[in-house]
């Protein structure tokens, strides 16, 4: 297997009500990624794209072929990946495998979503399609509801009074808003206080509006290349050193293991083993904080904190810049935004920049970061862990 490098990247500003179509958003970031890689569109041998709801949002399926044509990647094989909120991540992992295997030398990975075009009611309906449609959706089950169920189960399992857990959850959201202020691509640039979180609209108990990420529009892209090709193009290679992907079934079928997500733990294990690293080696992490409680559950599942303790870690500042393990220095899904097809690619873009030391001016650079971990959760059932290394 060959070593694979992340070359250039492109990232749109995440936003509400994008004036641009999915094809336009994706084309712009893809061109940025190709240019930053010192390549031309004709150098791209294959394209992988994460996009989930283009069909519902714009009546546009198969966005991958139309955007490939728009940027001059004429007749290049382009494939769409669907794994709900982890779509961009499975597109990235698959591209890694193609390059590592030797079949392609240069693959473009993109992700795009324009969810806000649907409006909240239809967006909520379509997002609920990533739970079980026959046995669980009929109860009124939605994604916020999944994490409402997990939050109460978490409080009960680890014997944390709900009021305490709510404060810990608020600390997660407050921190994300703070770092998003420093990220020019973030959807939300607004300080948030613990009091504001706890006073916000109740979505589904105990999840309040500010425990939840927004609906978002946006796109991101990166170029992957073999080490041999990359050496001619960059003197700051960032390697993909470990990958993991797993799946799981409907929430009730994960039964005794909950509120832990077994599939995440297995995906992370794959990535750590492949990279020859442990959680202690990770310098910076972008994880899937679609809800504040989801961030707490993720940090534990990735082995960054003991089970039942991640909320306290956020409160103590261990997840901040300079803390034990800086998490979501981008502002996370909560405040950077969560255009679901693009999210995994955005995480990769972000961590690549962390490992190259390019975020100093933005005031959110983790000093001398060598290894970075990304974690993405798609619906009930797609978990991806990818580790990036600076050498």
């Amino acid at each position, binding site marked *: 297997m060959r070593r694979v490098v992340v070359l250039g990247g492109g990232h749109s500003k995440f936003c509400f009500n994008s004036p641009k179509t999915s094809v336009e958003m994706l084309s712009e970031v893809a061109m940025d990624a190709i240019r930053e890689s010192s390549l031309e569109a004709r150098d791209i041998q294959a394209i992988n794209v994460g996009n989930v709801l283009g069909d519902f949002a714009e009546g546009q399926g198969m966005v991958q072929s139309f955007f490939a044509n728009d940027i001059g990647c004429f007749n290049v094989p382009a494939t769409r990946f669907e794994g709900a909120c982890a779509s961009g991540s499975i597109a990235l992992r698959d591209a890694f495998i193609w390059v590592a295997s030797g079949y392609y030398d240069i693959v473009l990975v993109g992700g795009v979503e324009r969810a806000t075009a649907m409006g909240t009611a239809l967006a909520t*309906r379509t997002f609920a399609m990533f739970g079980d449609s026959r*046995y669980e959706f009929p*109860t009124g089950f939605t994604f*916020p509801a999944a994490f409402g169920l997990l*939050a*109460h189960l978490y409080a009960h399992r680890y014997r944390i009074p709900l009021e305490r857990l709510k404060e810990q959850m608020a600390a997660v959201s407050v921190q994300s808003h703070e770092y998003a202020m420093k990220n020019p691509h973030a959807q939300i640039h607004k300080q948030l206080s613990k009091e504001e979180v706890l006073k916000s609209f109740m979505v589904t108990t105990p999840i309040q509006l500010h425990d939840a990420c927004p609906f978002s529009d946006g796109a991101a892209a990166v170029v992957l290349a073999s080490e041999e090709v990359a050496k001619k193009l960059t003197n700051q290679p960032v390697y993909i050193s470990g990958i993991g992907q797993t799946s799981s*079934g409907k929430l*009730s079928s994960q039964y005794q293991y909950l509120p832990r997500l077994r599939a995440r733990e297995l995906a992370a294990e794959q990535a750590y083993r492949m990279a020859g690293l442990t959680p202690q080696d990770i310098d910076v992490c972008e994880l899937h904080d679609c809800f504040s409680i989801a961030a707490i559950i993720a940090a534990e599942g990735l082995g960054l904190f003991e089970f039942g303790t991640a909320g306290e870690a956020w409160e103590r500042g261990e997840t901040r810049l300079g803390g034990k393990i800086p998490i979501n220095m981008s502002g996370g899904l909560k405040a950077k935004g969560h255009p679901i097809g693009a999210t995994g690619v955005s995480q990769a873009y972000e961590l690549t920049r962390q490992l190259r030391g390019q975020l100093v001016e933005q005031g959110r650079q983790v000093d001398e970061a060598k290894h970075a971990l990304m974690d993405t959760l798609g619906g009930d059932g797609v978990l991806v862990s990818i580790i990036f290394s600076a050498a």
Partner: protein
Amino acid sequence: MEYKVIFKDYNKALKRNKLLGLKCNDCGTVTCPPMMVCQECAGTNQEVVELSGKGQVLTFTTSYLNSEGRENELPITIVMVQLDEGPWIMGNLDDVDPKRVNMKLIGKRVGLGHRVFPGDRYSAGEAARPVFSYIEQIENV
């Protein structure tokens, strides 16, 4: 290989307040909602069983947000129940004001009823869902 219980049959039974599951003849695990295989050992040596529909609440959420076309159901309490036979199943909770449920709900004994979600434009038809209500402890002692 065919399913022993497909959704159509599960749904038909639930509409008569009967809950169908699958008991594994190899490891004894009961799987519900039904799958192709045993949810523990992945074996296919299973028989169809009717479950008691009784169990205890493990967790809950009261939703104030719902999908297009279902706003009239709000607020609604969703529960995860561990059935006496072992499996976990998602349903709703009756007889309680959704706005008043709290952590004390966890551990409460409940029994099965049902209500039919008539379906929407994406759901390919109706679906009965379990609706639980409190039962007296004494029933099971």
